[in-house]
């Protein structure tokens, strides 16, 4: 195991974040604050509490998930796309490292960044609403697993994309709708019966549901199912990354 390589890839990625600290950290804080003002205070005050949880509090886990998913994907995707785009990837590919180390370095950095952002959102939220976390260990488990698996997913997108358009395509066309329709801002049983069924095909629903359960013990599906869902997603991403590196996909001709 080339520990030094993992270390420098990780630190290099984190440095990139530090250099754009305003964009990396300020933007999630500002957008979270805006969501709270609009949904929590303005609209939320007219919405009745959901299973005993006031609306402003109810949306916190969904809001965190929204940021975690989009940030994890875009960070990791950009992290590997950029060196591919400017050619500096040659150095990584000619170094004595296997794909495992490359993935740990890049995905680890992206996941860490998401963890930091998630924590910042949580702290920001606690200024607006009275938060309680019923199952902190479950909460951290979902939090960490989500950051890792969606960073891995973003990494795959970054490997696959050969232009900027493709880089934006999946997050924009698939992830954002799935998150919004996955119950970030509502409970599934607020939907008409037909759409409740359709929503069950949305994998993000399971994530948000499990995460929300760890906060308030309120969920749309069972927490075990949620955990199984995120673990299978993680396994699928790992298999795909392994396959891509094994075949040299777009990295080695």
């Amino acid at each position, binding site marked *: 195991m080339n520990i030094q390589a993992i270390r420098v890839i990780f630190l290099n990625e984190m440095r990139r974040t530090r250099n754009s600290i305003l964009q990396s950290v300020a933007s999630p804080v500002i957008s979270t604050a805006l969501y709270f003002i609009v949904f929590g205070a303005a609209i939320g005050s007219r919405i009745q509490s959901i299973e005993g949880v006031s609306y402003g509090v109810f949306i916190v886990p969904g809001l965190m998930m929204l940021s975690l998913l989009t940030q994890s994907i875009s960070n990791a995707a950009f992290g590997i796309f950029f060196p591919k785009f*400017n050619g500096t990837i040659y150095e990584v590919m*000619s170094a004595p490292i296997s794909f495992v180390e490359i993935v740990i370095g890049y995905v680890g950095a992206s996941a860490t960044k998401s963890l930091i952002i998630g924590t910042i959102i949580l702290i920001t939220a606690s200024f607006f609403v009275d938060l309680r976390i019923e199952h902190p260990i479950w909460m951290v488990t979902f939090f960490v697993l989500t950051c890792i698996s969606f960073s891995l997913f973003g990494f795959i997108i970054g490997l696959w994309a050969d232009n900027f358009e493709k880089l934006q395509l999946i997050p924009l066309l698939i992830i954002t709708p799935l998150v919004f329709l996955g119950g970030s801002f509502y409970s599934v049983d607020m939907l008409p019966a037909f759409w409740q069924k359709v929503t069950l095909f949305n994998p993000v629903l399971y994530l948000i549901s499990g995460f929300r359960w760890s906060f308030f013990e309120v969920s749309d599906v069972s927490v075990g199912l949620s955990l199984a869902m995120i673990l299978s997603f993680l396994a699928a991403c790992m298999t795909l990354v392994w396959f891509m590196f094994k075949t040299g996909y777009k990295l*080695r001709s």
Partner: protein
Amino acid sequence: MTSDAIISIRNLSKTYENGHQALKSVELDVQRGEILALLGPNGAGKTTLISTICGLVRPSTGTITVDGFDTIKQFRKTREIIGLVPQELTLSVFDKVRDTVAFSRGLFGKPPAPAYIDKLLDDLSLHDKKDAMLMTLSGGMKRRVLIAKALSHEPSILFLDEPTAGVDVELRKDMWKLVDGLRQSGVTIILTTHYIEEAEEIADRVGVINNGELLLVEEKRTLMQKLGKKRLMVELAESVTTIPASLQKYGLSLEMDGRTLVYTYRAGEGKPTGITRLLSDISESGLHLQDVKTTESSLEDIFVDLVRSPEHQ
């Protein structure tokens, strides 16, 4: 070949996905501590050959061993001791010089060594640029940063893919000095170049590639002796329009409006050159000699000859 080859390439072929065959059954041994120059026209396969050894391109057939290790099965062992300066100026422009060099060192598994990197940057005349952003550097400086990155992990084999392309005369001389210094410290160097004088100046051996085939690898001196042609130019006192029949067998040509007879012959290896006989035949034919001079072909002429000759097309 000899036992002290640090790189051994056997039957290496590469066909890219688009069907283009960039390397054709290449066999090559690089000796420990030597400087090997690879010469070849654009698209000959030089970069492909280097990239395959470094692990950037997967061979279609054949094997490569570096220091006795297989470049695919034991890639960690082989890549650890290799440094590569790529042909293109590929750098992440938002990084600082010092950081990007330290990054390279880490990638190759070495613990941080700020003092070594400082010294390296000094040696490459980058002492006042250590904390500069890469985008503020000139092309020549970027080239030197790439060299610093390739040397950051103290490799024992260095690949330089056209190190002096787009580099001014002074820097080129510096580069040659650097290469010489590295050789003194035992580093094996493989470089590609379009500049024949560069190969002539610094290489021990020269390999010529064309169309994916390694046409030859020879000691520079042997090559020049073996293939080097000399031209004997005989200036006549008065111009002639035809070459006398008695001189036909020499394959002479007439130049300078019939004032000069040119005789081409192979030099070296103690073979008779035929010059004595030619000169006496010329005076017997009634022509008067004014002056005589010879010129030697350079590596460049040899090279052009080789890649043009029909048997290699």
